[in-house]
């Protein structure tokens, strides 16, 4: 293996590339070549490093110097000053408020995180299976194949207390056990990578940064339940993720980590990728399975659950990307060690995508049970421009808002449900005083109305009615009875919708009414939008009064 003097890790996560990372990389490689340093400096494209707001980013080892907001025009200077003369360029480095230039492990944004799922993201070249293997990749698969019986694998996952990271938090080990118990010649493993919640991009980043961990997690699940075929269902909006998945799949097949008789065992498992075609509802598991079969992505009534009657009517384990990414760690390090992270009923970590009005937006992984205050202030660096925190949206269009008074609520499935919010898949949008809560609720409802598949009436028609009322309120024509009507409709939709999309669609409205009722009332009674977002027309009586004044 070739030894390099300097390793320059460039973030090739979707957001850094979009922010110009690819042209910077090109310029850097060109500058290195010009100075004839190709044999001394290795440039590595990694997955998402996390601090997306600072992109394009680069970490230079051995020192761990952190460069942010890079432009192609910076490349020449970095090569001649830093790479040649050993003088890092402070102008381009990550700078803390105290004026220090921390290295990667000193930055608070990274130092307060615990990484299991993202253990390789930003560390390795995601297109290299060798680098994944060098970081203990596929060792967990080798361990189960060589020294564990399938039921022992299920037991280990049960013991770990891992819960589904797609949002519902169902115990993963139980899910596997249900499918393992089924007597069927054909069983399937499916990864739900149809991430669609506005504000959420964890799954995209994990796939882009560490695709092999999904493959390994799925293969372990397949061994545990007796499945031979798997599918990764990824949304079509993620072309970079799809490309890297294809590369990872091809390489895993080439070296015999997928296919027949894996690692010389009796276990065979094959994997294919299925691409969506733009339908949010396909994130619902039964709709997703229909879509894999090539049908309209409409949900089915449950039960039967996919664990007994799933893809093509066969027993199917369907888990989220992040859930599978936890599996290799649990198998390799043991359930005990996993349980030491997080809380008793919510072990492990959760990945969040931090967006909205927070200083450092990006991808983070924290132990469950941490408070939102620590996420926003210690990791995210607080609210920009000295503005006041107003609320954080969790769980996307299915979730709710966490108000300032609840900032210390521990982040776990139960505590968030209690305050009318939701863990969800991990989208976390921070809002400051400039956000109007009625407007936010309206936007989520618009989303649900657009994305409702139309199969059941409460979701199709009910959400539309709710949106009409919200539009009325935000335009200054709200009626005193509107709040009551909204709550009434919301209850009906929650109780009677067919799938999770409809059942959870009213949540953002209910949660904003619960914590910000005064804002709704100000819109209705005083025709006033406190945050000054909604364009309110003055009430008829006011218009008349004004007209009178003018004529007099």
């Amino acid at each position, binding site marked *: 293996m070739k030894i390099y003097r300097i390793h320059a890790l460039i973030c090739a996560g*979707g*957001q850094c*590339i*979009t*922010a110009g990372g690819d042209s910077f990389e090109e310029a850097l490689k060109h500058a290195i070549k010009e100075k004839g340093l190709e044999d001394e400096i290795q440039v590595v494209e990694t997955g998402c490093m996390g601090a*997306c*707001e600072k*992109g394009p980013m680069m970490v230079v080892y051995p020192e761990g110097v952190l460069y942010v907001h890079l432009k192609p025009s910076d490349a020449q200077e970095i090569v001649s000053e830093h790479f040649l003369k050993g003088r890092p360029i402070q102008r381009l480095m990550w700078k803390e408020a105290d004026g220090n230039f921390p290295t990667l492990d000193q930055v608070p944004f990274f130092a307060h995180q615990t990484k299991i799922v993202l253990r390789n993201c930003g560390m390795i070249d995601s297109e290299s299976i060798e680098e994944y293997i060098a970081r203990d990749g596929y060792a967990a698969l080798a361990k189960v194949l060589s020294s564990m019986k399938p039921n022992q694998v299920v037991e280990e996952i049960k013991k770990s207390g891992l819960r589904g990271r797609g949002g519902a938090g169902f115990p993963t080990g139980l899910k596997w056990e249900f499918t393992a118990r089924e007597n069927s010649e054909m069983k399937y493993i499916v990864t739900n990578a149809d*991430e*669609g*919640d*506005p*504000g*959420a*991009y964890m799954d*995209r980043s994990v796939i882009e940064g560490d695709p092999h961990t999904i493959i390994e997690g799925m293969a372990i699940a397949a061994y545990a339940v007796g499945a031979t*075929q798997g599918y990764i269902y990824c949304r*079509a*909006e*993620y*072309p*970079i993720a799809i490309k890297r998945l294809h590369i990872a799949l091809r390489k895993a097949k080439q070296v015999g980590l997928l296919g027949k008789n894996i690692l010389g065992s009796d276990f065979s498992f094959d994997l*294919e990728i*299925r*691409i*969506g*075609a*733009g*339908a*949010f509802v396909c994130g619902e598991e039964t709709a997703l399975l229909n*879509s*894999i*079969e*090539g*049908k*309209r*992505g*409409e949900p089915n009534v449950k039960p039967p659950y996919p664990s007994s009657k799933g893809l093509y009517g066969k027993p199917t384990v369907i888990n989220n990307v992040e859930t599978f990414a936890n599996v290799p760690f649990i198998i390799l390090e043991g359930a005990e060690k996993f349980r030491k992270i997080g809380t008793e009923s919510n072990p492990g970590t959760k990945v969040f*995508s*931090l*967006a*909205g*009005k927070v200083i450092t*937006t*990006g*991808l983070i992984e924290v132990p469950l049970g941490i408070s939102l205050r620590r996420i926003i202030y210690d990791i995210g660096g607080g609210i920009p421009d000295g503005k006041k925190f107003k609320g954080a*949206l969790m769980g*996307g269009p299915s979730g709710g808002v966490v108000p300032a008074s609840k900032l210390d609520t521990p982040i776990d499935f139960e505590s968030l449900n209690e305050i009318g919010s939701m863990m969800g898949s991990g*989208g976390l*949008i921070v*809002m400051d005083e400039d*956000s109007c809560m009625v407007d*936010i609720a309206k*936007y*989520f409802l618009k*989303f649900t109305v*657009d*994305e409702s*598949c139309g199969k059941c009436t409460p979701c199709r028609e009910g959400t539309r009615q709710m949106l009409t009322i919200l539009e009325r309120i935000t335009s200054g024509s709200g009626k005193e009875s509107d709040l009551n009507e909204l709550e009434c409709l919301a209850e009906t939709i929650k109780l009677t919708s067919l799938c999770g999309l409809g059942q959870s669609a009213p949540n953002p409205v209910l949660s904003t009414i619960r914590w910000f009722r005064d804002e709704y009332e100000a819109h209705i009674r005083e025709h006033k939008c406190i945050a000054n977002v909604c364009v309110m027309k003055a009430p008829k009586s006011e218009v008349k009064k004004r007209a009178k004044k003018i004529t007099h």
Partner: protein
Amino acid sequence: MQKKSLIEKLHDLQDSHHQTNHLSKEEVVKLCEQDSTPLSQAYGVATFYTMFSVKPRGRHIIRICENQSCHMADAVQVVDELKKYLGIEFGETSSDGLFTLEHSSCLGMCSIAPCMMIDEHPYGNLTPSKAIEIVQKMKAGV
């Protein structure tokens, strides 16, 4: 390798029409005859998913997000200016046949909102002028 699903076949068909990005009726009918799939089923699938179109579209598809994170980052201004520049509304194609403007539910680039995707290329941290500049550059490159 299992045989391709109807969705994959429709993707293939649509991708073969670079200029119009749509599913032509004749080809879908032919596909259905070959596979003994009812045409109604293919039509049902094609019209269910937003990325399929049974009507001809522009050479490039602009998918722009107006949801929460993008909304908070003033996506509405970007959308308005882009509509004005192209002279079209959502779902319409510019008169030169180059661009169709579509809504996206979320492109998963919320940290660099507002964002859009033209064909398979994502663009983030948009401002109205930056968005128009990107479109202008594409236009010049065609």
